[in-house]
């Protein structure tokens, strides 16, 4: 056992990080084997909620457990670090088909050990006709399925859990799982089984007891293992650590945590088990600095812990966040590239009383991310009028290190958004972000954020082709039997509206069917313990047990469509540079032989992201049109559709599915990233212009969040003055009403890419000497010069 902290001079975090990241992502079949066995024995005899409970209990009792060298926080998701458990009850066929290509595919590769391969080949076919996906495919109408397959939209909860929540972790810290199990038992005893609602409640409460007790046993297994390891450990320091791990795991998550270490361990067990129970991603720690702070403060006040000790514990936890894996199919590996788990941990912001709630732990979380230099957790920072300048500076300092972390969120915009959704002010002030940018009341919400991504680029091309998708040739939308004529710009907008209405209905239909199926087939009892009012209502998270129930679909390619509408409006109908028929012909030929025409569309009409009121106005109108279109619909859990504007990396997935568009974008070129970011390379007037354009959208309507990426060169935010400028960008965007912003502080690799593809990076500002320039406008020798300087300065 390696316990040579003093000798090596390395921190524990460095060793843990290296140890974990040395494991290449792989597939683990253990969970699949246990769950399959369990379902085959019990499926006919138990209601789904109890079946799920017993399957989870079996996994927690039987799966391999591991305590790694140097670990202080324990608990593994599968048999090796960074190995992905399999959830065949959700979907299986694609795994079988892709077993051979998982290790070699283009994005997010996974090793498949021979024993896992063999086991999965045996296990997976046993799910034929029984998995969630098998049922979903039969339940979805043909037109919905066809639209999904053609990537008119992407349904993202057909073959995995719902996930996407900030659980109420505080309740495992106090009172702990034993008390929760006790409450469930008391409710059981109190039930009057002649009451028709009581049967459902009985099933739910029984399931609650099963999973709460299984989680306590799971922790007990770690205690036992730690004791065994301690007995065999030669190094006295490590031996003491192992005995402390054992002590903690005997205490939490069953009983209330009292120390910071106990609280972190209890948190981790819950966070982990939710991700063993089901494979919905975006399980978000939420306001970690708020619910953990009492434990940290108590340890500090009691002299049990110093700042460094606390940071070391956070280091251990931060590495753990990166051990969790989710296997995705080939399509999703593009749409969700980079092994993301979206574990959004948010610090800072106001308390329920409206006063600043930033505390010492908020700062420590920034430090932990700086030290870890790892993608998870998805660190976020809440900012509002009264956020301490020191804290915003510290967060900005981290942001300019180039990790893309933290993301910044604006209380002053988001709290009113939640109030508009019917949330009382005090609860709205306690919001957390889930996944990327989805705001919610933590511990009370099923926002159903995996409600899919609408491909606006394709909707536009369908509008120009009377409902036909030019890529597949399929009639995906409504057609005018008389054929289409575009006599004026208004005709274009009307055609787009018509397709938009249609595709909105299709996506809502798909969402509601899948939502309903999740409630029927895969209610998850463990996660439901951490969401109000599941236990009281006897309804799972997926069944409407939450206090707040939304459905949050997203739209991709807003900037492209706004730019395209602007180009048509200006160049076809106002200035008559080009005939509509000629434009359509040019698009159908993917601009082959029409480079001049393409550049005309690209360069001769204003583009969103340059602080131009006309095209920004088109973007605003379009965004509001899309958002309000969704808001008229309701979901099976009694809630409303609350849409947002974000893309994750769905814009990459949609790339091949969108024909040439009138913004001068050829087929197979990426749609705009982010959600409200300008199309790549088209924002040529710098970040202040981008911010003013983005702020022109109506952020109050985007109740599922807006996502703005801004690229900055490291030089433009270097030094004390640069830091203040970064802070000013954030402050100003938020004063103007933006919800979220994150920064890519560009390194030399991007500059290299910019050399190869200057057309995509025309917005890149670099510092040369006494002033700044657009990188792509300077000659190659100087580009070379700047790249070299950047490399040794950053």
């Amino acid at each position, binding site marked *: 056992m390696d316990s040579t902290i003093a000798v090596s001079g390395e921190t524990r975090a460095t060793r843990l990080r290296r140890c974990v990241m040395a494991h290449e992502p792989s597939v683990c079949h253990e969970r699949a084997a246990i769950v399959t066995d369990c379902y085959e024995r019990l499926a006919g005899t138990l209601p789904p909620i109890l079946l799920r409970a017993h399957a989870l209990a079996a996994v927690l009792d039987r799966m391999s457990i591991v305590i790694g060298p140097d670990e202080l926080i324990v608990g593994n998701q599968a048999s090796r670090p960074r190995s992905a458990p399999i959830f065949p009850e959700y979907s299986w066929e694609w795994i079988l088909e892709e077993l051979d290509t998982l290790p070699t595919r283009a994005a997010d590769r996974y090793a498949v050990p021979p024993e896992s391969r063999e086991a999965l080949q045996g296990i997976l076919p046993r799910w034929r006709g029984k998995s969630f996906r098998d049922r979903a495919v039969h339940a979805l109408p043909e037109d919905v399925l066809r639209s999904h397959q053609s990537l008119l939209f992407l349904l993202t909860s057909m073959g995995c859990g719902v996930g996407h929540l900030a659980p109420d972790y505080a309740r495992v810290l106090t009172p702990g799982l034993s008390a929760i199990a006790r409450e469930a038992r008391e409710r059981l005893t109190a039930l009057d089984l002649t009451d028709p609602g009581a049967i459902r409640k009985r099933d739910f409460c029984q399931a609650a007891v099963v999973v709460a007790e299984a989680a306590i046993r799971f922790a007990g297994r770690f205690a036992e293992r730690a004791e065994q390891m301690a007995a065999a450990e030669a190094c006295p320091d490590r031996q003491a650590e192992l005995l402390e791990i054992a002590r903690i795991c005997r205490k939490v998550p069953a009983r209330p945590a009292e120390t910071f270490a106990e609280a972190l361990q209890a948190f981790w067990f819950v966070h982990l088990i939710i991700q063993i129970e089901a494979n919905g991603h975006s399980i978000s720690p939420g306001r970690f600095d708020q619910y953990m702070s009492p434990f940290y403060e108590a340890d500090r006040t009691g002299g049990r812990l110093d700042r460094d000790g606390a940071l070391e514990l956070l280091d251990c936890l931060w590495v753990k966040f990166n051990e969790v894996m989710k296997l995705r199919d080939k399509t999703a590996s593009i749409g969700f590239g980079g092994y993301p788990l979206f574990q959004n941990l948010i610090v800072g912001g106001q308390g329920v009383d409206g006063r600043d709630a930033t505390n010492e732990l908020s700062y420590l979380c920034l430090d932990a991310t700086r030290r870890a230099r790892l993608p998870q957790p998805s660190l976020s920072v809440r900012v509002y009028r009264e956020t301490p300048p020191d804290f915003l500076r510290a967060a900005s300092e981290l942001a300019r290190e180039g990790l893309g972390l933290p993301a910044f969120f604006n209380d002053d915009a988001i709290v009113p958004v939640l109030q508009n959704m019917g949330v009382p002010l005090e609860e709205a002030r306690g919001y957390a972000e889930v996944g990327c940018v989805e705001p919610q009341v933590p511990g009370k919400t099923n926002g159903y954020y995996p409600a899919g991504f609408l491909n606006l680029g394709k909707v536009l091309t369908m509008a120009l082709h009377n409902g036909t998708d030019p890529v597949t040739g399929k009639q995906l939308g409504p057609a005018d039997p008389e054929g289409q004529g575009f006599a004026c710009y208004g005709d274009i907008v009307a055609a787009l509206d018509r397709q938009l209405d249609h595709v909105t209905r299709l996506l809502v239909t798909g969402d509601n069917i899948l939502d309903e199926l999740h409630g029927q087939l895969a209610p998850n009892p463990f996660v439901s313990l951490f969401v109000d009012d599941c236990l009281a209502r006897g309804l799972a998270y997926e069944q409407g047990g939450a206090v707040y129930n939304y459905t949050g679909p997203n739209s991709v390619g807003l900037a492209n469509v706004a730019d395209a509408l602007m180009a048509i409006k200006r160049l076809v109908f106002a200035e008559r540079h080009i005939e509509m028929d000629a434009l359509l012909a040019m698009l159908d030929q993917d601009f082959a032989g029409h*480079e*001049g*025409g393409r*550049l*005309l569309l*690209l*360069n*001769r009409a204003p583009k969103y992201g340059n*602080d131009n009121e006309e095209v920004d106005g088109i973007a605003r109108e379009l965004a509001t049109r899309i958002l309000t279109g969704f808001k008229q619909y309701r979901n099976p859990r009694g809630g409303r559709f609350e849409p947002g504007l974000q893309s994750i990396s769905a814009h990459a997935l949609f790339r091949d599915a969108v024909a040439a568009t009138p913004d001068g974008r050829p087929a197979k070129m990426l749609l705009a990233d982010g959600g409200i970011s300008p199309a790549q390379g088209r924002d040529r*007037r*710098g*970040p*202040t*212009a981008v*911010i*003013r354009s983005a702020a022109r959208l109506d952020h109050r309507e985007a109740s599922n969040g807006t996502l703005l990426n801004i690229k900055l060169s490291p030089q*433009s935010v270097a030094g004390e*003055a*640069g830091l*203040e*400028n970064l*802070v*000013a*960008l954030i*402050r*100003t965007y938020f*004063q*103007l009403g933006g919800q979220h912003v994150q920064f890519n502080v560009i390194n030399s690799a991007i500059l290299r890419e910019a050399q190869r593809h200057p057309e995509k990076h025309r917005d890149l*500002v670099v*510092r*040369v*000497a*006494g*002033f*700044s*320039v657009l990188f792509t406008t*300077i*000659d190659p*020798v*100087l580009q070379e*010069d700047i790249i070299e300087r950047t490399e040794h300065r950053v």
Partner: protein
Amino acid sequence: VSEPAADPSGIIFDIQRFSVHDGPGIRTLVFFKGCPLACLWCSNPESQRFDPELLFDPTRCLACGGCVEVCPHGAVWRTGEKLAYDRGRCPACGACADACPAEARTVAGRRVAAKDVVAEVLKDAPFYANSGGGVTLGGGEPLAQSDFAREILAGCRLHGIHTAIETCGHVPWGVLESILPWTDLFLYDLKHVDAETHRAQTGGDIALILSNLERLVGAGASAIVRVPVIPGFNDTAEDIRAIAEQVARLGIAELHLLPYHRLGQNKYLLAGRRYEFAGGDPVGDGTMTSLRDVAAQLGLSVTIGG
């Protein structure tokens, strides 16, 4: 204090927002066209002449011929697959630039009203407020169009915007005096203190520049002196010490040393001109640091870069 004239206009060639190295905070930099000096190393060759000029980038040209159709001067014509262009016949009217989809032909320089420049500057007002930034007039030489410059400065000031001007100081004192009430910060170029050397390389009179600076300081203006460090011209310790001594003597606290670069080389080609400066390679980081130390020894606060 003279009142600004009614709605003057002038020629600029760019307005750059989020300019973060030309005065404090986030700024908008207005590039004036035309300069009384003619420094060989100038990195903005399109800033030197007072009239609009056509920039042509052959690497972007599609040879679509749109320019041939619209050129009223017969300055562009087709020869086989390619296009030919005679700059001698081109008054840079911009008809071709308007017709060019590829941005191969652009015009550097446009006449704009001061109030329109102010309106553009005001767009980023909240960014200035949060960062302590504002507007900076640069170029070119803003004071070569002094009524226009004064109108912009005054217009911005009336809206509470911090104002700065980058100037070579080679103007009659009365011009500086007239903008003084509207200017919060002077970024004042000082390239060399030897009259002969200065005249030979820039075409300007250092005595005028120095006396203007002295009078500015005497009038209570806030100034930062900026020195472009040019190889073979002013890159020795003696050169910098001599400049720094003047700066210290005048009681100016801050000095910026701006390393020479070849950024503008390509723009000479686009403007159909030759880059004639042959002073040598940019001054290295080590030399810049030692030059900074030389000036710092005189008690100045010295920054490399803006």
